[in-house]
């Protein structure tokens, strides 16, 4: 079942395309991660999903129901958009009570449960303005999660959290999806998104330029073999004659991208030893997510131009 479905969403501010024909489909139980540079259109899309801004064109369906003025299923949605803010003079408890009332909830223990879950007991009666950035983030998440939503929309949910908090949020999101909830989140921390998301969408200049699941992502990361010998020029010649596309890099190393070499580096090592050029260094290098992300954007730019 599709929990989120958008069809050719367009939102334009002057000549800037904040959303350019974005169509996404998020199924029940998925954690869909959004990657994009600042200003790529992530927050615009999230705000459109929350009916804070209206698309110029296109439709949004949440739980199969069209998002319009008649949409009523807001209690099935929890959200955190950009920096979390709270009423500074209210305590953590009162901040949660405000949203308990706004959400017309009728289970008083929900507040205590979420305070406990987000480890905010110690700050229960502290005013929001004295909380650290990390605890403000926890309070923001508590507001988003208090009513046990079926869909959670989070914009940069781990900003300001310490490593322990990041792990807790990751576990919380995984627990939610195990219970049947669906999560859509954006983050600029690519490593974190790859750990938690089941599917990833890359958005750039308002366009969804790549959509892939976590396995596809890791299979698409560029890998190469880096080698150094006592005589790299001679080694390159031998490798080239043997059918490997070896090249010399700027830092005087040898780089091979052939899948066979990457999968069986011991074959290369044995080959060079036989040629009396034993490697002094041989390592497999895997492109990190940042590089993959930037490469994807670059490819998209060159395709457009």
């Amino acid at each position, binding site marked *: 079942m599709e929990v989120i479905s958008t069809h050719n969403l367009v939102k334009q501010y002057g000549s800037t395309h904040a959303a350019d024909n974005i169509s996404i489909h998020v199924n029940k139980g998925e954690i869909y991660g959004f990657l994009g540079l600042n200003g790529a259109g992530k927050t615009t899309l999230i705000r459109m999903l*929350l009916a804070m801004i209206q698309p110029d064109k296109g439709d949004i369906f949440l739980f199969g129901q069209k998002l319009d003025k008649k949409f009523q299923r807001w209690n099935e949605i929890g959200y955190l958009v950009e920096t979390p803010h709270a009423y500074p003079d209210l305590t953590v408890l009162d901040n949660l009570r405000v949203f308990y009332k706004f959400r017309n909830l009728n289970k008083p223990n929900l507040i205590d449960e979420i305070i406990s879950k987000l480890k905010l007991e110690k700050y229960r009666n502290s*005013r929001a303005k004295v909380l650290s950035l990390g605890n403000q983030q926890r309070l923001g998440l508590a507001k988003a999660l208090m009513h046990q939503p079926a869909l959670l929309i989070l914009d940069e949910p781990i900003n300001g959290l310490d490593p322990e908090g990041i792990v807790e949020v990751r576990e919380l999101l995984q627990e939610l999806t195990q219970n049947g909830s669906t999560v859509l989140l954006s983050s600029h921390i690519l490593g974190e998104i790859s750990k938690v998301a089941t599917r990833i969408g890359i958005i750039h200049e308002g366009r969804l330029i790549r959509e892939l699941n976590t396995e596809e992502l890791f299979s698409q990361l560029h890998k190469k073999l880096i080698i150094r010998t006592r005589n790299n020029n001679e080694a390159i010649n031998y490798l080239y004659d043997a059918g490997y596309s070896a090249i010399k890099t700027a830092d005087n190393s040898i780089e091979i991208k052939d899948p066979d070499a990457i999968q069986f580096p011991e074959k290369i090592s044995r080959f060079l030893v036989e040629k009396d050029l034993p490697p002094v260094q041989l390592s497999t290098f895997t492109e990190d997510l940042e590089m993959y992300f930037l490469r994807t954007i670059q490819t998209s730019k060159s395709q457009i131009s």
Partner: protein
Amino acid sequence: MNVLYAELIKLKNANIVWLSFIAFGLAPVMGAVFILIMRDPDALANAGALSLKIEAMGIKPDWNAYLGILTQAIGVGGVLVFGFVASWIFGREYTDGTVKDLLSLPSSRSSILNAKFIIYIFWCVGLCISNLLTGLILGYFLQFPSLNMTETLNHLAIYFNTAFLTIIIGTPIAFFALRGKGYMGALGFVALTLVIAQIIGASGYGSFFPWAVPGLYSGISQEYKASLNAFSYGIVFLTGLIGYIATIFYWRYADQQ
């Protein structure tokens, strides 16, 4: 009711509530000080510019004059203080950064705004009652000659009618607080209306300017009060209605960045 209760929780620990009562409460205190000075010829002689002001205002040490001061404080000072209250109630969500938390909830945006308008009305009515009670207590100690029932009811009617008119013309401030995304735009609007009301009121055309009408009605100038007519009250109600509708429509239909 839940939405109203949520809005009430938000007032907890808000110093602005007590500050508004203290600031508005200066009016009956200052009025009492005026009257005390008037009663003491030595103090009046030493009061300098203040004595001239007292003479110009024609204040007499009785209930009529004192209740008149309290009413005028609402008709003129209320435009400022009630405007400040409206700016805070509607602008705080932007200043506190909490506005985005209010836009995608089962409680409709209109219901949240209506709860805010109810808080605004009760807050302003509270300020009026507080000033009246303070004035009655101070008047008791000043030992004014008693008023008869008809005069008392007449004063109370003018007092609360002035409050009613002043509260009504506060609704556009809510719109400017939302449109300006915070207190500043709304406070600028309040300051502008206050200045223009003074200028237009003094030039004799106050009956055509909604923000001058409460002041004129309060009796700040008997000469100009007579110029108020159905049109004057009509534009006050129309301004209030337009302010309310614009506020609701803006939050319901405009993009919220």
